[in-house]
């Protein structure tokens, strides 16, 4: 096939429509226009060395984004018109979406704000354009996610008021504080945190196997918004890698600063993604791959290739990578156990995995599941059968940095909780790990202000002194409807009715009189 000669090459077009539209200021100092570019200590000698591997111009951007949107919304319509929610594998699956909508979608909005701000701060036109496009992408992501979920909201509980919940529900302070930490950093740290550590190194774990899982569970709407969002991610990942290489190439003094950011944001991202791991291993009725397998492919393998590539700049893999590699066998079981026992305060239901699912877990986690985790599920199953479904009636300690309860075990001892504590200026602080302790010690003033949900309840700032009041008044969750055990929940009964599976026997201990909290 002969090729028609285009009017402009991609490279030239990009040059004209981005770099050439920037200008050198004449009557204002550059430092006054971009006042936040220097304070982090990152030295940029020559912004013209910034590479734009994707060379996407605004006209092409709108063209491709419009095409994605048209495809996406046609599918949303079809999904709603055909009662697609009834074709999912099992109603339990929707609980993963509740977590996604209240935990992840608000982060997309946070990313929109973050990139809008960061883009404003760079004096290099290439970086500004990339940030601007990403800001618009992120806004699109939060919108499409809300639109996709709005259909589920008509038929399932717990999807209402997700933005309100994001700001208040105890465990949602984990994603919220992650992003607030990034957004309150300088523009270069923000890009290292979100574009590199999160987008490049870790989001594949969120969007690739999980969305493939959505497809495998018959959720056409979610797989479609997931992959539509992820199609922007190729650009975001490229920006992430580019910004790191650019900073490293600009000045050798940048290397230790960036290394510390990589160490910090890898660990923060890893802690955050333990929620995603749980969704994959415990919340997808049809399972695609285990968290451990996904970690091996998308972190150990891909991250290995990446950090080998970055060796030439003097960058080493993240400091606590080994602990994360050990944790892949454990964290999802530990997180699910946590939500199971604190389900009186969650916006989704929890349950004991079926025998078949436990068999799958045992196969995927041959060195850990049967030995360390099956005994607790067996016990809880027996309690449930006796009408004493297990709930933990206390409130948990929280890590001062990641805000996850110290529920993970020591890397060298799966029977001992990992916990670190220090005194700082006369106050005691507690952490889940060496990684979080390091982060605190580098910038203690930032983390002493942490809004820890458990402490806020005890200070009397959450509209109630008992869990049920806080859950109902402060979180806007309806006890017995939005939370607690799945089996016997209104949603469970509705699903059986849709599927004409007959009236279930009232499962022991699953009535709404559960003595939650």
């Amino acid at each position, binding site marked *: *096939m002969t*090729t*028609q000669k*285009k009017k402009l*090459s*991609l*490279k030239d077009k990009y040059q004209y429509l981005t770099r050439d539209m920037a200008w050198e200021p004449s009557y204002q100092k550059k430092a006054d226009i971009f006042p936040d570019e220097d304070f982090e200590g990152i030295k940029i000698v020559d912004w013209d060395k910034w590479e734009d*591997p*994707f*060379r*996407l111009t605004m006209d*092409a951007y709108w063209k*491709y984004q419009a*095409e*994605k949107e048209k*495809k996406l919304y046609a599918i949303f319509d079809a999904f709603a018109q055909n009662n697609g929610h009834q074709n999912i594998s099992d109603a339990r699956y929707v609980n993963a979406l509740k977590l996604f909508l209240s935990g992840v979608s608000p982060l997309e909005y946070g990313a929109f704000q973050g990139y809008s701000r960061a883009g404003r701060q760079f004096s290099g036109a290439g970086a500004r354009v990339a940030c601007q496009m990403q800001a618009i992408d992120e806004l699109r992501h939060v919108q499409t996610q809300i639109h996709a979920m709005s259909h589920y909201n008509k038929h399932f509980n717990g999807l209402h008021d997700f933005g309100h919940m994001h700001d208040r529900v105890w465990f949602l302070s984990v994603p919220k504080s992650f992003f607030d930490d990034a957004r309150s950093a300088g523009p270069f740290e923000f890009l290292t945190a979100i574009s590199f550590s999160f987008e490049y190194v870790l989001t*594949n774990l969120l*969007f*690739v196997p999980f*969305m*493939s*899982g*959505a*497809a*495998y569970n018959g959720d056409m709407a979610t*797989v479609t918004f997931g*992959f539509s969002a*992820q*199609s922007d*991610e*190729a*650009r975001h*990942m*490229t920006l992430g*890698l580019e910004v790191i290489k650019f900073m490293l190439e600009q000045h050798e003094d940048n290397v230790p600063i960036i290394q510390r950011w990589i160490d910090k944001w890898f660990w923060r991202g890893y802690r955050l993604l333990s929620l995603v791991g749980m969704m994959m291993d415990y919340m997808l009725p049809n399972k*695609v*791959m285990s968290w451990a397998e996904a970690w091996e492919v998308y972190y150990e*393998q*891909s991250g*290995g*290739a*990446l950090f*080998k*590539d*970055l*060796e*030439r700049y003097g960058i080493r893999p993240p400091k606590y990578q080994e602990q994360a590699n050990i944790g892949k066998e454990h964290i999802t079981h530990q997180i699910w156990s946590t939500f199971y026992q604190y389900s009186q305060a969650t916006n989704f239901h929890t349950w004991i995995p079926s025998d078949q699912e436990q068999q799958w877990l045992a196969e995927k986690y041959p060195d850990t599941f049967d030995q360390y985790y099956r005994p607790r599920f067996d016990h809880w199953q027996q309690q449930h059968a006796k009408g004493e479904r297990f709930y933990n009636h206390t409130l948990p300690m929280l890590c001062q940095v990641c805000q996850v309860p110290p529920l993970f075990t020591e890397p060298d001892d799966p029977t001992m909780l990992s916990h670190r504590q220090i005194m700082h200026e006369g106050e005691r602080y507690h952490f889940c790990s060496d990684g979080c302790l390091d982060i605190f010690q580098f910038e203690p003033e930032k983390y002493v202000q942490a809004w820890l949900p458990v402490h806020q309840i005890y200070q009397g700032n959450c509209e109630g002194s008992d869990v049920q009041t806080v859950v109902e008044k402060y979180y806007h969750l309806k006890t017995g409807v939005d939370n607690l055990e799945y089996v016997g929940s209104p949603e469970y009964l509705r699903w059986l009715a849709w599927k004409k599976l007959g009236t279930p026997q009232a499962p022991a201990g699953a009535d709404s009189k559960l003595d939650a909290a």
Partner: protein
Amino acid sequence: MKQLAFIVFQDNDNARYLVDAITEDNPHAEVQHMPAMIRIQAEKRLEIRRATVEAKIGREWDVQEMLIDVVSIGGNVAEDDDSFVLEWKN
């Protein structure tokens, strides 16, 4: 240690031609099918050539059209009018 460059596409009609073209141009590539997605990985380097895709798809094809169907990538990106390359250089 292996250093795999990879690209993941949505499993749709466009992707079929892309995958055909990529496997032709990258004999060392491995194709993995998963629910709703296709992952292609190859040691060090993976290339999409416009000419090959156009021959498969039977029309003009802009390299940037891959942005509609791509799900994820791994490797340093180099893009021009004729190709899209993912590569680990070290």
